[in-house]
């Protein structure tokens, strides 16, 4: 489904990603872990075309997309829930949801059924929502694009524990809905609950690849790169 092959990404002159490779198979949920500043968001930005890599290849469902503009990548089937949610605050909740809505599958009704709060707030402007509601909106907005690969960049960031669990439950439920998932998280426990496979990133490189079980056992990796004992 997605094959990232040896990409190098820069912001201006600063070289952030140093030959990163990663795969997500169809129907799979993959977690990308790593400390703050490891390069996870840059990885996501490279995949969606916000900051295209200068070297390397990104192949999505058989097509090399690394030089495509973001709108084409999105239309091809990549659904983004960005770090910080990036809700369009001046737009109503409904307008946020419908902005990128395409094709069949996920409909406004289904998103409202998944997140009833959004139905209640449909005509309110996105900026008036709480953090948790904004996260639901960001997920609903991405689902409505009916992409086949859902990229989530720290969906639990800044949320209360009860909401983190709620988001974890929703994301886990989405997997298998003919949807593959690439989940970026600092919340180790959330990621392990959702993922089939995990990657750990440090200083712009992949330093570990395995299953949640193998990572649980890899004490040294956890301590050095994730700060979990």
């Amino acid at each position, binding site marked *: 489904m997605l094959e990232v092959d040896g990409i190098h990404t820069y912001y201006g002159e600063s070289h952030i990603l140093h030959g990163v490779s990663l795969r997500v198979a169809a129907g799979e949920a993959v977690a990308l872990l790593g400390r703050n500043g490891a390069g996870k968001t840059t990885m996501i930005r490279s995949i*969606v*075309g*916000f900051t295209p890599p200068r070297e390397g290849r990104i192949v999505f469902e058989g097509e090399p997309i690394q030089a495509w*503009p*973001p*709108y084409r990548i*999105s*239309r091809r089937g990549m659904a*983004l829930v*960005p770090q910080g949610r*990036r809700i*369009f*605050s*001046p*737009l109503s909740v409904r*307008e946020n949801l*419908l*902005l*990128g809505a*395409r094709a069949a599958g996920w409909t406004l009704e289904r998103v409202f059924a998944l997140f009833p709060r959004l139905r209640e707030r449909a005509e309110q402007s996105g900026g008036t929502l709480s953090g948790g509601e904004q996260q639901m909106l960001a997920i609903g*907005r991405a689902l409505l*694009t009916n992409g086949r690969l859902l990229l989530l960049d720290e969906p639990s960031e800044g949320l209360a524990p009860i909401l983190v669990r709620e988001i974890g439950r929703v994301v886990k439920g989405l997997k298998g809905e003919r949807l593959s998932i690439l989940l970026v998280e600092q919340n180790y426990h959330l990621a392990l609950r959702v993922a089939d496979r995990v990657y750990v990133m440090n200083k712009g490189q992949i330093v570990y690849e395995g299953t949640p079980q193998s990572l649980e056992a890899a004490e040294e990796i956890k301590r050095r790169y994730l700060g979990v004992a």
Partner: protein
Amino acid sequence: MPALPDLFAQALNGLSYGVLLFLLSVGLTLIFGMLDVVNLAHGSFYMLGAYAGLTLIATTGNFWLALVAAPLVVGGIGAVIERSCLRPLYRRQPLDQVLLTFGLIYLFEDLVKWIWGGRIRSIPAPDLFSGSVTVLGATVPSYRLFVIVFGLGMAVAVWLLIERTRLGSIIRAGVFDAEMTGGMGVNIHRVFTGVFAFGAALGGLSGVIAGPIQSAYPPMGASILIPALIVVVVGGLGSLKGSLVGSLIIGQAETFGKAWLPGASMLMIYLVMAAIVLLRPQGLFGRPLK
């Protein structure tokens, strides 16, 4: 103390001027909000609208045709400018954009002098509105009333388009966060071109309807640019509501400034701007500055 009818007539003058400023500042504020470009050549679209109107009226004898066709011509010019000149500069520093759009002012002014000559050309009002009417004791050219009603009608139409349609929600999203709008599958560059052309067309429309009031003369674009920029600052960058309210305030300030401080009418505008910016640095309806 001037008589009431005089005050009223002046307020109507201010209102018609404000309406012209509004049509001009919509493009300026949307382009700034979305593209992060201060288009100094935006006044040129106003000038081009007036001259295109002049020629269309002279050749067809039909003001109403000019009112529709001249903005389309100017919008087309805007689209070409955006594609050819501005697009390569989006990733460059603001100074490059300022220099480019500043240069365009001279380019268009010379072009106009070359085609139409440098003298003032008056533009007749349409026959329907060539007379004057008496309102509350004040004698007002009926064309001014037409400008006011037409301009406020356009304000409502633009507001409905931006606030109530799907296209409008895409434009508002793009003004708020262009990158993320692209990430939702919107071809944001096409939206940029469209908004630039739309803003240029409204600037051109402003020029056509200004024609019978102000005549056409080459520096008219540069001279209306400053008040239009002030409207954007007063109203708040990227805000449509700010554009409308700012235009109406600056329109009145300019007109009353002219009457009360002849020779220093711009001073009044600057004072109003300074007062508003001191109280609200982001403008009346702008997003708070970070």
